[in-house]
């Protein structure tokens, strides 16, 4: 038995998307910038995808710029906005729980003299709109708050933060990589000026994403080349990838309500099952405002990497915020930001679902996980039964 529960890392490409992409690569290979038929076909394909992506977030097609994914989108917005508005101000507001694409871009900007406020979050990982408002100064040029957290699944009060940004006439960006395609995202209702999304989080291909730039919002480019994507993202378009992104967007929109319901029910089953079968665990992230596909627990007395290795030996793919898996000596910055002590943060387990996740996979995890935890706890000097 196998169970893939790392869908926040990436998802399986829908087979019909993979097939359509393969066909596009050999049949529809024209450079969209040409004037002949093959190129016009490619151009049409981009237009269709742009409409599909726009529809998913209630934007207008002309507000969509294709990119190579989330990290590129985040970097290009942060640097592009700073470059454009540097004379107006040099202050950015963000949170302590952002993805590294935002945090590391902010750190790089700090080295050039930009002031960055990293807001605290509450025990569930939420930033308050009041805290955002209080941080605004006359030098603030951008607020960047993620739509939903990649580790703990908490959905931020985006609409309220958007309203604050609008009231103070500050641009508002959201890294919506984990939210788009999973929960309704409406850039108009949420007062979002700039947004980042990527296809591979909702069954599209890796390496293709988009940014939404509200009409009228100006930013500078950080990549140089031709005039593609309004000159903001030069380079010959990845037509096959963009086709896949568009198809994934359409699929996500058409199935959003049913997937939210079904995947959400599996998530709740997993949460309830773990809480019932394993003592001394803590659900990380909000219980209510939570992505339908995210489960994140801290499991006391054990360390995450060993847990992942034993799960893998049983065919279960999962992830952890432990130091060993975060790539540094410190455990996840998100788990520390919500107030977990280091030793508890080391023992975190993230299980993330998708529309492909089955009841059987969830049952299988609920059968194996308690045994694996018990086995590691029996080895742990911190555990006294």
């Amino acid at each position, binding site marked *: 038995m196998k169970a893939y529960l790392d869908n926040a890392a990436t998802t399986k490409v829908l087979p019909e998307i993979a097939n359509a992409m393969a066909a596009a690569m050999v049949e529809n290979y024209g450079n969209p910038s040409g004037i002949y038929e093959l190129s016009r076909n490619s151009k049409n394909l981009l237009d269709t995808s742009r409409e599909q992506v726009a529809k998913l977030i209630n934007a207008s097609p002309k507000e969509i710029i294709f990119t190579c994914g989330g990290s590129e989108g985040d970097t290009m917005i942060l640097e592009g906005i700073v470059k454009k508005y540097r004379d107006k101000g040099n202050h950015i507001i963000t949170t302590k729980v952002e993805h590294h694409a935002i945090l590391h871009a902010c750190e790089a900007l700090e080295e050039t003299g930009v002031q960055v406020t990293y807001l605290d979050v509450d025990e569930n990982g939420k930033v308050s709109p009041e805290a955002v408002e209080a941080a605004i100064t006359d030098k603030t040029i951008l607020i960047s708050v993620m739509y939903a957290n990649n580790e703990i699944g908490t959905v931020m009060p985006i609409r309220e933060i958007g309203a604050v940004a609008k009231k103070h006439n500050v641009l508002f960006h959201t890294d919506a990589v984990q939210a788009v395609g999973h929960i309704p995202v409406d850039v108009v209702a949420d007062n979002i000026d700039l947004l980042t999304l990527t296809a591979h989080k909702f069954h599209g291909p890796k390496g293709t994403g988009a940014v939404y730039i509200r009409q009228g919002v100006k930013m500078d480019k950080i990549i140089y080349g031709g005039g593609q994507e309004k000159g903001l993202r030069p380079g010959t378009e990845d037509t096959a990838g963009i086709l896949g992104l568009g198809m994934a967007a359409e699929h996500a929109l058409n199935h959003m309500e049913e997937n939210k319901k079904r995947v959400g029910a599996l998530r709740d089953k997993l949460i309830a099952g773990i809480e019932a079968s394993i003592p001394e665990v803590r659900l990380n992230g909000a219980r209510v405002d939570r992505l339908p596909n995210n489960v994140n627990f801290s499991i006391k007395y054990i360390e995450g990497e060993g847990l992942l*290795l034993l799960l893998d030996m049983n065919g279960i793919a999962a992830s952890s915020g432990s130091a060993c898996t975060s790539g540094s000596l410190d455990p996840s910055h998100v788990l520390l930001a919500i107030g977990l002590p280091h030793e508890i943060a080391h023992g975190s387990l993230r299980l993330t679902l998708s529309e492909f996740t089955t009841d059987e996979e969830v049952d299988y995890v609920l059968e194996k996980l308690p045994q694996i935890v018990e086995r590691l706890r029996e080895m742990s000097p911190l555990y006294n039964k």
Partner: protein
Amino acid sequence: MYTGKVMDHFANPRNVGELSDASGVGEVGNAVCGDIMRIYIKVENNIITDIKFKTFGCGAAIATSSMVTELAKGKTIEDALEISNQAVAEALDGLPPVKMHCSNLAADALKAAIIDYKKKNGMSTEGLEMCPGCCHGCGKEEKNTD
């Protein structure tokens, strides 16, 4: 990322547990950095006749703990003190570079247990120095990126 030997010792760790009649107990690491190793030794006639461990930590931490118990069992105290963290890693056919410092403390835990044994028996522990037992104490922090 891990060798077959590491995975074997992680999946089937040798000598897990505690000794109620231990001659010495040693513990290194701390929960903050994610590794704690505790080793129990039973010494008879200067020979380690039994040894057990309990470890909180990653795959490498558990595998090195298991390996050091195998290496030390049956050895004299003097020979056991010759076992280095490096030797433990080599016996496991190597560890990923990032694990060499933070999770490769098993020989230190053994040494701590031997010091405890010597102190309990009024023997000199001169020359037996311990590392501070924390990842952040010696300035040897390693950062990797992925």
